[in-house]
């Protein structure tokens, strides 16, 4: 056994060549989205800094994975239609799910923690009463505020364009758009309109400067802007011309990110990556409800609720990538990320000219210091093995954040002044968490197949030995290097 282990590690020391990567390959070494800057040639880095698309020769790639029991397919092509010019078309990339489809993160568009409109105005009762009176059946008021309706999961298409006018300099842009609609109209004597709309527009741009300096190898700068839109509304006018309306929509919600990366080589084959990122966002939303009807369970009202969510994040990362032998690369990376978010919820009744009696302010903060260590090496002539170990040194509580909640009280709701506040502070630290990952690649000059291994498969052994079912991998990817295919087939 020892002998085989010895041979195994000896084989790792043979020739290694850094190949272009898929997301599957990165994940095999534990390189998640937080760490794509940390190691050279990570394919997913082109989405952060599209200037790097020019580094890729013509490829066609496809990935198939299981994520949270949902099968996911993605892929695309990168071509060089003209000299120094790259074009990428990619489909199947995910939208920012935390923002668009969730209600549990501080910056989620559906995180409200108070249910003022639904709770205080009985709009659902209003809605149902009118519907019953007119024989319609729309009754969708509550869906306006629900994150689980009208899910938007994939970007329709992502287009990358890169230009490398000189050997040392490249620039690129990346854009994508996606939307989802759930809309229903019913008309008999009255008309009911129910519309849910959600979209994400993302544009990123980057430049990369590749130096011939002895130490400093490259500097790159990237920025991205993401615009989120929610526009959910219910509208109905009854026979007397009186209106019931509610809507929930974004107030110019966006994400803005700027990143800077330096790559230095102190001694040959020993690279350091230094990354600095700043993100700021505003994912505020507004809910309004209006009723002019007086003979239903509640009185006429017109309320407006503001859900303000603003925050920022600073991330400073450092990695050490060392090609210890021609065929073996090891790396270690860490970053410190400091996040700070503030959410404010308040509301007014425009008919009675009163303010909400119980506004809420929530402050979130967190500091993360994860560490990632990994190895990638050639096992045999056509096989690459990779391994990653990640560990979170410092994490906030299990919810991911330290939280301070201010529950305000207004003794006099006719004035904006807050008279009393209760503060609840919730801090702590979750236990350290660790994770391992394994990956394999089979490659030929013209193609490469990557697997992100299923740890269960490696721990319990293949079916032949264990009699237990375990899938070999959670993700598989195939990449064709178009320019090399002819060479391969000879």
């Amino acid at each position, binding site marked *: 056994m020892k002998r085989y282990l010895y041979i195994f590690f000896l084989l790792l020391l043979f020739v290694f060549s850094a190949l272009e990567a898929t997301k599957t390959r990165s994940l095999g070494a534990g390189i998640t989205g937080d760490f794509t800057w940390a190691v050279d040639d990570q394919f997913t880095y082109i989405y952060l800094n599209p200037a790097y698309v020019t580094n890729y020769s013509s490829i066609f790639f496809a990935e198939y994975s299981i994520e949270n029991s949902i099968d996911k397919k993605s892929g695309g092509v990168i071509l060089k239609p003209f000299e120094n010019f790259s074009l990428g078309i990619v489909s199947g990339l995910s939208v920012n799910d935390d923002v668009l489809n969730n209600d549990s993160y501080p910056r989620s568009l559906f995180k409200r923690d108070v249910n003022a409109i639904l709770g205080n105005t009985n709009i659902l009762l209003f809605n149902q009463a009118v519907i019953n009176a007119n024989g*319609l059946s729309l009754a969708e008021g509550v869906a306006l505020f629900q994150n689980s309706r009208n899910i938007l999961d994939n970007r329709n298409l992502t287009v990358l364009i890169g230009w490398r006018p000189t050997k040392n300099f490249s620039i690129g842009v990346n854009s994508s758009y996606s939307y989802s609609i759930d809309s229903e109209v019913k008309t008999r004597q009255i008309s009911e309109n129910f519309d849910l709309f959600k979209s994400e527009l993302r544009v990123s741009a980057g430049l990369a400067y590749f130096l011939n300096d002895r130490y400093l190898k490259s500097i790159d700068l990237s920025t991205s802007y993401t615009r989120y839109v929610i526009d959910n509304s219910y509208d109905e006018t009854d026979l007397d011309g009186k209106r019931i309306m509610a809507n929930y929509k974004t107030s110019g919600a966006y994400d803005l990110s700027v990143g800077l990366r330096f790559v230095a080589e102190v001694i040959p084959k020993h690279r350091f990556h230094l990354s600095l990122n700043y993100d700021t966002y505003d994912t505020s939303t507004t809910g309004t409800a209006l009723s002019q009807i007086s003979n239903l369970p509640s009185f006429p009202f017109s309320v407006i609720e503001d859900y303000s969510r603003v925050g920022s994040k600073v991330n400073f990362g450092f990695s050490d990538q060392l090609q210890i032998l021609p065929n073996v690369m090891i790396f270690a990376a860490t970053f410190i990320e400091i996040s700070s978010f503030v959410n404010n919820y308040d509301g007014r009744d425009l008919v009675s000219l009163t303010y909400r009696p119980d506004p809420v302010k929530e402050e979130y903060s967190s500091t993360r210091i994860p560490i990632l260590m990994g190895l990638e090496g050639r096992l045999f002539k056509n096989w690459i093995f990779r391994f990653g170990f990640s560990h979170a040194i410092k994490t906030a509580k299990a919810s991911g954040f330290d939280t301070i909640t201010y529950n305000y009280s207004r003794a006099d709701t006719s004035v904006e002044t807050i008279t009393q506040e209760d503060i609840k502070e919730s801090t702590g630290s979750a236990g350290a968490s660790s994770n391992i990952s394994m990956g394999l690649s089979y490659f030929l000059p013209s193609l490469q197949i990557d697997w992100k291994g299923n740890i269960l498969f490696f721990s319990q052994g293949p079916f032949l030995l264990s009699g237990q079912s375990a899938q070999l991998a959670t993700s598989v990817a195939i990449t064709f290097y178009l320019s090399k295919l002819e060479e391969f087939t000879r």
Partner: protein
Amino acid sequence: MIKLFVKALIIASSITGLRAGTVTLEKSLGIHDTPWMKTSTFSYATKNPTAWFELADQIIVDYDLLSVSGALIFKVSNSLLFSIFSGSPTNSSVLNSGIGPEGLFDFGGSNYITFFNSDTGNVLDSASTGTNLGNLPVRVNELGDPSFNLLQQENLAMALAYRKRKSTLGFQVAYGFSKNLEEFFGLAEETQELWKSQLRLNFGLKVENLSDLISFFDIALELKTFDLNNRYDGRVTTTTEKVSALVESAGAFEVQLMGRLGLKKSKSNFWIVYSSITAFDFSSTAQAKSSVQPFIIDTIDNFSRNGFNAALGISNRVKINKSVSFLIGSEARYSYNTLFYDGIDNGNSLLALQPLSGNYYSLKLPLILAFEAQVSKSWVFNLSLSQNIINIPQGEFVEELTEMFRSNQAIDRLTTLESSSRVVQGKSKTEMTLGLSWKISTIQIDWLTQLEIFREGPYFLSGESRKFSTSFGFRYSFSNLKDKIWKK
């Protein structure tokens, strides 16, 4: 072992050799719904018979775990070709569907006045159980049930194509039918007959080598007629009581005009521009008559379904080198369908309480990226990604329904209208297909593989049982054999 396994999965045969395709090959390239994107596709030849010349002197068979189809394409001379094939799919969304807006069996909700009326139950079936009738159970419900007497494949198709110099003319006829007859003779006489058929005629014209740039131009006209005739007749032999019911198509047809322009930008760069327009009428009627007490009825329901669709597409096939080719294509498809329902109760001189009209819209814009690579002398690997750039509405159509109410069923006037529309769009899912082709001498075998196998690993590793492929195609070229025989 693993190496062999992986290599066997990845490696493929010659793109250049894979000119002629099976349906399985089309599926693995993601172009089964848009076969115009590539020349020499089986499915496009079933639309434009002049394209059979591209598949001349071959036997092609496909098996997709449910059905088998096959063709013999025989070039009688350099200018004349004959093809005979069977098993091509019928227009199942019309003939075997109760889903709107195309299905002949789409009878909508519960407001219709004949035997589909859910308020009163199945009147005729109820009638039959209360009298001397009743020996053919659920005789009437089956008439309006699309899952009975399915017609999924054409029985036989034949094509003739004639080529003179640069021009080719083609004609094709295809027919499929299904029938189910049940009879009972006793105190009552009952007959239930279910009948479905589809007739398809195709006319094609192709002109080649029009200029250095225009490689070909082809145009085709396709005419389909759909015949549905499901009937039940019952008679009590001791009395004059009769019961009958009928569900039938009302002149249902589809006519499609399509054309392609093939542009050869260079030896390795080929463009195809495609356009088509289709008009259709998938109307059907349902009738019921009964003189059996107390279920005296005489009703007719008319379901009018019309519409058109138009498509415009472009594809670019680039041969990167002698082993690899890449295809990118897109097709914008717009559909507009209408539905109108009304009913008459002749026995009581009443009209339907709630007639209905509907409009259905759909716009699709799939983008297809396909890749073919010859990775060894005998193996070709095919991979495709497809995605609708525009989200498709759930149910594939935006539905706008207007329901009308008659307060007085004795007069035609409509008193109240209720309209509704619903659209849900949120999925822009990427689909992926992966295929392998193995070619040796004059034989080619294609597989459409299961992606899961590649991720999960084979059974001996993962313990997960999966079929290796979901579709299998076989092609044999007998041109050499024919030449030898003919020379003798």
